[in-house]
C-alpha cells in the first residue's frame, strides 16, 4: 500500500505545474503556468455557474427534489465519456512504461495507480458540479445540515463506477486488439464501433421511453430523471443517501465502487504486460522492396506526415476524427430517416416548418467537424520531435501550411458528404445547396486557420502523455469552447434571420464573414510563424 501511495504521489508530482513553477528558472514558462492556472479557474467558475443555473431552473419550477439524481447522472455521464477517451493514453502504452515496469511494482499496482491518477486529476471538475448543485439544492430544498458533508463525501465516489466501467471497456478493447497483428488499427476500429453503438443505444433507450408504458409515468422532467435513476442504480443510491440518509445507499455506493476497483485491477493486472507489449511493438515484415518513390512538395510532405501521425495513435485518431465520424453518421441517418423526421424528433413535435431550418445545415455540419481541429494540437504534438522541424531547411510557415492543408484534407470531404446528405434529405434547391457547400468550405478554412493560431500560441512541447495536449491542452480548450458556443448561437441566429429575409442573403453574408475571419486567422498564423 505504501508503494501504491508513493507511485501515485510521484505520478501527480511528475505532471504537476506547481513543481515546474517551483523549480523552473524560465520566467516565461512560470508566467505561462500562472496564466494556465487563471484559465483553469475560469473554466471551473464557468462549470459552477452552469451547474448552479440548472439548479436555479429546477428550483424555480419546483423540481429541486430531482437535483441529487441529476447531479449523480451528470457526473456519471461526463466521467464515463471522458474516461473512455482517455483510458488508452493513460492506462496503456504510456511513455514511462519501461521505466516503471522495470521497478519492483506489480503490474496491477501500476495500472491501478494510473487509474487513480486519472481520477484525482478529474475530480475537481466533478466536485465543481457537485458543489454547485449542492448549493442550489440547499438554497431551494432547505435540507438538514447533515446533507452537506454527506453530499460532498459521496460526490467523490460518484465518478468511480462510471470511470471503472469506461476503463474496463478500454481494457477489453485493448485486450482484444493485443491479439491482432495490427493492434492499433483494431483498437481504433473497436473504439469507433463502441461510440457508434453508444449513439444507437441512446436512441433505443429514448424510443423505449417514448413507446412503452413508461411514458405514462414520465410526464415531467423530474419524473424522467427519477426514471433514469432506476436504470442507473448508483444515481439512486446517491439520492437515497443524501436525501433519506439511507445507510444502504451509502454502503452500496462506497462498497460497490471499491469492490469494482479491486476486481477490475486484478483482471487488468493479469494481462497488463501482454497488452502493453503488443502496443509498444511494431510488426517487422523485413520484406520491403524499394519501388517508384514519388517526390511531393514540402507542404504535401508535411500534410502526409500529419496523416501518419493521426493514424499512428489511437488516442489522437479517436479524438481528432470524432467530428468526422459523427458527421458521417448524421448524414447517413438523415438520408435514411429524413430531414423532416429528425427536425420533428429534435423539436419534440413542435409545429415548425423544416424549410426555415435549412440555412442551419452547414452550421450543423460544422458544429461536428469544427469540434476538433487537428491544427490546434498538432504543433504541440511535435513534442520532442520538434528538433526535426527546427533543424530542417524549411520555413515555419511552410510547416504550418502543411498542417493546415492536412486539416482541410480531413474535413472538407466529410463536409461535402454531410452537407449533401442533409441537403438531399431536406430537398434543398440546387443553388442553396451550392451556397451551403461554399459556406461549409469557408467554415472549414476558418476552423483550420483559427485552430492553428491557437495551436501556435499555446504550443506545449514538454508533455508526458499525448492526452495532455490532445484533450486537455490550453490550445484545444481555447479553440474548442468559443467555437462551439458561437456556432450554437449562429445556428439560432441564421434560422431567425432566415425567417425575416432571403435565406440566400443570410448564407452569403455568413460566408463572407467566415471567409474574412479565415483570412485574418491565416494572416495571424503567418505572423506567428515568423515570431516563433
Amino acid at each position: 500500500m505504501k508503494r501504491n501511495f508513493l507511485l501515485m504521489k510521484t505520478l501527480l508530482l511528475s505532471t504537476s505545474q506547481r513543481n515546474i513553477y517551483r523549480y523552473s528558472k524560465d520566467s516565461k514558462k512560470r508566467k505561462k503556468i500562472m496564466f494556465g492556472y487563471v484559465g483553469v479557474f475560469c473554466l471551473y467558475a464557468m462549470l459552477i455557474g452552469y451547474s448552479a443555473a440548472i439548479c436555479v431552473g429546477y428550483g424555480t419550477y419546483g423540481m429541486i427534489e430531482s437535483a441529487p439524481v441529476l447531479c449523480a447522472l451528470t457526473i456519471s455521464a461526463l466521467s464515463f465519456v471522458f474516461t473512455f477517451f482517455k483510458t488508452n493514453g493513460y492506462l496503456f502504452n504510456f511513455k514511462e512504461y519501461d521505466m516503471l515496469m522495470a521497478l519492483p511494482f506489480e503490474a496491477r499496482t501500476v495500472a491501478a495507480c494510473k487509474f487513480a491518477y486519472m481520477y484525482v486529476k478529474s475530480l475537481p471538475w466533478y466536485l465543481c458540479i457537485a458543489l454547485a448543485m449542492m448549493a442550489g439544492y440547499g438554497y431551494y430544498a432547505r435540507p438538514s445540515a447533515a446533507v452537506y458533508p454527506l453530499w460532498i463525501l459521496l460526490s467523490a465516489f460518484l465518478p468511480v463506477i462510471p470511470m471503472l466501467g469506461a476503463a474496463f471497456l478500454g481494457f477489453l478493447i485493448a485486450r482484444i486488439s493485443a491479439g491482432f497483428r495490427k493492434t492499433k488499427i483494431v483498437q481504433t476500429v473497436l473504439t469507433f464501433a463502441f461510440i457508434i453503438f453508444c449513439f444507437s443505444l441512446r436512441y433505443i433507450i429514448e424510443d423505449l421511453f417514448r413507446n412503452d408504458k413508461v411514458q405514462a409515468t414520465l410526464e415531467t422532467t423530474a419524473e424522467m430523471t427519477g426514471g433514469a435513476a432506476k436504470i442507473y442504480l448508483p444515481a439512486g443510491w446517491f439520492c437515497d443517501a443524501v436525501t433519506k440518509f439511507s445507510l444502504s445507499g451509502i454502503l452500496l455506493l462506497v462498497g460497490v465502487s471499491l469492490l469494482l476497483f479491486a476486481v477490475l485491477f486484478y483482471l487488468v493486472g493479469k494481462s497488463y504486460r501482454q497488452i502493453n507489449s503488443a502496443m509498444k511493438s511494431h510488426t517487422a515484415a523485413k520484406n520491403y522492396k524499394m519501388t517508384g518513390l514519388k517526390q511531393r512538395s514540402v507542404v504535401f510532405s508535411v500534410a502526409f506526415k500529419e496523416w501518419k501521425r493521426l493514424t499512428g495513435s489511437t488516442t489522437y485518431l479517436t479524438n481528432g476524427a470524432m467530428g468526422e465520424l459523427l458527421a458521417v453518421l448524421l448524414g447517413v441517418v438523415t438520408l435514411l430517416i429524413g430531414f423532416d423526421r429528425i427536425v420533428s424528433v429534435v423539436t419534440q413535435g413542435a409545429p415548425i416548418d423544416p424549410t426555415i431550418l435549412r440555412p442551419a445545415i452547414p452550421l450543423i455540419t460544422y458544429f461536428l467537424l469544427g469540434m476538433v481541429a487537428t491544427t490546434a494540437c498538432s504543433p504541440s504534438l511535435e513534442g520532442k520531435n520538434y528538433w526535426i522541424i527546427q533543424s530542417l531547411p524549411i520555413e515555419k510557415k511552410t510547416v504550418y501550411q502543411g498542417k493546415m492543408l492536412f486539416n482541410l484534407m480531413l474535413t472538407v470531404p466529410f463536409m461535402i458528404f454531410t452537407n449533401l446528405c442533409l441537403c438531399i434529405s431536406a430537398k434543398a434547391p440546387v443553388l442553396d445547396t451550392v451556397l451551403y457547400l461554399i459556406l461549409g468550405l469557408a467554415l472549414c478554412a476558418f476552423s483550420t486557420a483559427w485552430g492553428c493560431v491557437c495551436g501556435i500560441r499555446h504550443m506545449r512541447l514538454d508533455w508526458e502523455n499525448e492526452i495532455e495536449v490532445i484533450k486537455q491542452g490550453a490550445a484545444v480548450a481555447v479553440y474548442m469552447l468559443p467555437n462551439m458556443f458561437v456556432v450554437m448561437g449562429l445556428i439560432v441566429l441564421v434560422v431567425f434571420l432566415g425567417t425575416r429575409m432571403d435565406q440566400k442573403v443570410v448564407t452569403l453574408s455568413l460566408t463572407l464573414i467566415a471567409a474574412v475571419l479565415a483570412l485574418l486567422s491565416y494572416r495571424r498564423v503567418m505572423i506567428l510563424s515568423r515570431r516563433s
Partner: protein
Amino acid sequence: MNDRMMLEIRHFSKSYGGGKKAADDVTIQVACGDIYGFIGHNGAGKSTTIRAVVGVLDFTDGEIYIDGHSVRDEPMACKRVTAYIPDNPDLYENLTGIQYLNFVADVFGISPGEREERIRKYAGLFEITDALGDLIGSYSHGMKQKVAIISALIHNPKLLVLDEPFVGLDPKASFTLKEIMREMCGQGTAVFFSTHVLDVAEKLCNRVAIIKQGRIVAAGTMEELTEGHSLEETFLEADRDET
C-alpha cells in the same frame, strides 16, 4: 567471478504480431561477477531480449531466471535485485533530479542515510551534484543518462542490465561507468549490457554473445571467442559465416 548463475536465459523467443522473430531460441548464462557483453547489429534482437529480462516485455516461449527466480512467475523477486538502464531513458521530466532519485530509493526502501551516501558518491563521480535540484526536462541527454545510472545503482543491485549505456555519455562519464561496472563485478554483481562499441566490449567484458537476426551466432569467454583475433574481426567473421 564465481559459478553461481545470476541470469539464465533459456530458449527465449519472441515474435511481434506473427511477423519475423525478433529473438529466436536465445540461451545465455551470466554468472555472478561476469561482465557480459551482448553485441549485434541494429535490430538484431538485443533490446527485445533485454526488455524481456527486466520484466517489461511479455513473452511466452522460453524461460528467464534471475538469481534463481522466474521472471514470468516471480517478477517482483527478480526486479528487487535487478537494475535496468534503457538506451533512451524516459524519466519524469517535470521532477527534479533529486526528486526522481528519491522516488526510486523509496521504491526500493533504501534508508535515508544509505541513499544520501550513494547519491553523493555517484552524483559526485558523474559530476552532476549541482544539477540535481533542476528539472529533468532541462537536462541534456547525457545528464538524463547519468541520473538513470545513479537511480540504477542506488539499491546496490545483484544484476545490472544496461542497453547501450555509453551512448550520450561524455568520455569521462564513460570511463567512470566502466570503473563502476568493474568495481561492482568485483563485489559479485553480474553486469549484462548491449553495445555496438566493440572496443569497449573487448576491454571490459569477460564473456560475450553475438546475436544476429534474433539468433545467438557465437557465445563464450572472450578468449574462446576471439582466439587471438580482435573482437571486431571475430564479429565480422561470425556475421559473414551466418550470411
